[in-house]
């Protein structure tokens, strides 16, 4: 169980995350959504210890992660970063092996258990046949799977993903998120992922946290959070929310055709918001 309790982060004098509180049970996925620049990526950086927090706690099974050394934290929490600017000459196997860093000594000599963990992580992410390829030659979807494999090799309880689907096409988006969902359930992982796409968040997450200006605007099940009222006030555009024909989860459609939207605003169909 991951408890984030009134986490506050400052960048210089500016508060960028204020009083974030959320709880993620093991095996579940929480998706963090919100407009650009509200601090979603900062949240990942703060949870993973890259950005120091001003106050608040991140409690995992009774241990405060903010008090741990990088190595101790990396054994409990793994991050899947966005796949950009990877050092292209490393092979996939070498890259995934770096996930074992918190367990390796200074010289980085891998033992049998490390190779087993790497092999397993690559099997689960279907990257085994890429093992000897260079990371730079891979497609965006493949790179993202390799980074997921590296995070799995860390054998952590918590998985943080920072916009894992941003540069992927439709097929790779759903493949990756299905994989994350399956792994979360099978390995009982606690997953927090930052997503841009509201529909993906609705479909794949157990909980959604809608952020605005460094605070949580709403948090809960997708159907409670992803309402047209919430989304319109946060994104400042009119949206239509309809139930997904198969799963009943909210499906978000923009209602922002220029002429039509302003007419609706004038007619008072959509609540007017200050931009």
């Amino acid at each position, binding site marked *: 169980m991951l408890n984030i309790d009134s986490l506050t982060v400052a960048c210089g004098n500016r508060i960028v995350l204020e009083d974030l509180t959320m709880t993620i049970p093991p095996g579940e996925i929480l998706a963090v959504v919100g407009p650009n620049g509200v601090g979603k990526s900062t949240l990942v*950086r703060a949870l*993973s*210890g*890259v950005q120091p927090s001003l106050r608040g706690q991140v409690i995992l099974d009774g241990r405060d992660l903010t008090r741990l*050394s*990088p*190595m*101790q*934290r*990396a*054994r409990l929490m*793994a*991050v899947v*970063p966005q796949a950009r*600017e*990877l*050092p*292209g*000459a*490393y*092979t996939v196997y*070498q*890259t995934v092996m*770096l*996930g074992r*860093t*918190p367990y*390796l000594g*200074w*010289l*980085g000599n891998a033992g049998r258990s490390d190779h087993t963990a790497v092999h397993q992580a690559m099997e689960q992410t279907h990257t085994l046949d890429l093992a000897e390829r260079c990371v*730079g030659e891979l497609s965006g979807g493949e790179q993202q799977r390799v980074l997921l494999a*590296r995070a799995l090799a*860390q054998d952590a309880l918590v998985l943080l993903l920072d916009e894992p689907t941003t540069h992927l096409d439709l097929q790779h988006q759903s493949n990756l998120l299905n994989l994350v969902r399956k792994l979360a359930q099978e390995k009982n992982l606690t997953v927090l992922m930052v997503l841009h796409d509201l529909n993906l968040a609705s479909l794949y997450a157990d909980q959604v946290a809608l952020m605005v200006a460094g605070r949580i605007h709403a948090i809960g099940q997708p159907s409670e959070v992803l309402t047209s009222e919430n989304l319109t006030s946060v994104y400042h555009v009119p949206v239509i929310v309809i139930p997904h024909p198969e799963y009943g989860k909210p499906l978000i459609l923009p209602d922002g055709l220029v002429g039509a939207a302003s007419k609706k605003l004038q007619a008072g169909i959509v609540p007017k918001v200050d931009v």
Partner: protein
Amino acid sequence: MKPHPYLLNLALLVLAILLSIGVGAVFIPPTTVARMLAARLAGFAIVPDWPESFASILFKIRLPHTALMLLAGAALGGSGAAYQGLFRNPLADPYLIGVASGAGLGAVFALTIRWPSEMLGMYTLPAFAFFGATLSITVVYSLARIGRAVPTTTLILAGIAFSAFATSMMSFLMLRANTELRRALTWLLGGAIMAGWKPVLAMLPYELLGLATLVICAHALNVLQFGEEQAQQLGLPIERIKLLVIGAASIATAAAVAFTGVIGFIGLVAPHVVRLVWGPDYRHLIPLSILGGSSALLAADMLARTVLAPQTLPVGIVTALAGAPFFLWILRRARTQAYW
């Protein structure tokens, strides 16, 4: 199939050592060298069939000079690889980023001091060079850093600017200390002015400390290639690692500069060739660059001694003549960074 990295590099190094010992104003064939060594060191009863002058040439000049170049090349190769890894920049080299000039400034400063004993001066020389190197890396790094990245352009520009500053400071110091001028000047031209085994012994402890630390940090350098943020998320205490690598690379550079002057491009060329052939894994890249740096500097030194014989060129001229075009080639190549 790729040639075995360590076997090939060791073979090249042995060849370079043999040639370096043999080639010069008088050629001493390797077999004679072997028999002279056997007679002198192992006490074999070999009847000398070589001229008497060979003994002093070999033991007082060639062997210590070769050892000095071997150590200097190793330090430059290893620290070059480490700086490249640390800055995640293919063009980082102790010479280009101003560390060598900084170390040079420190060393010149030490040379202008009148020490109570010669040995004291010799053993503190690398320490002064290390101080200069640390100063320069601090200045260059903080000037070149933009946000969390160290772009090539600002790194090289800051390096050039600091080099210019350090070089003029060196000239200033040398002009002021008239009596010591000659000593410092010959040294500056990249010549091992201090013959014999003393500089080798003075250099060794600093060099071993620096290079051993770099070998130990190799895995951390691998992790760092994915960026500081990811490295930290993978469990690396990056601030400590960065300090350790900078310190180790600078002390190795300082040891080399203190006794052989400012020699450029070895730290650029050796790691690049290794990386091209055997890939980016720093656990092999660092040791192989150490071996390769030695071979490269020994080869350059041999050229420097023979091209205009009996005159000896400063070895820095040879490395720059060969290294500068290589630098330009990498500069063009770095845009694609296919193998980086």
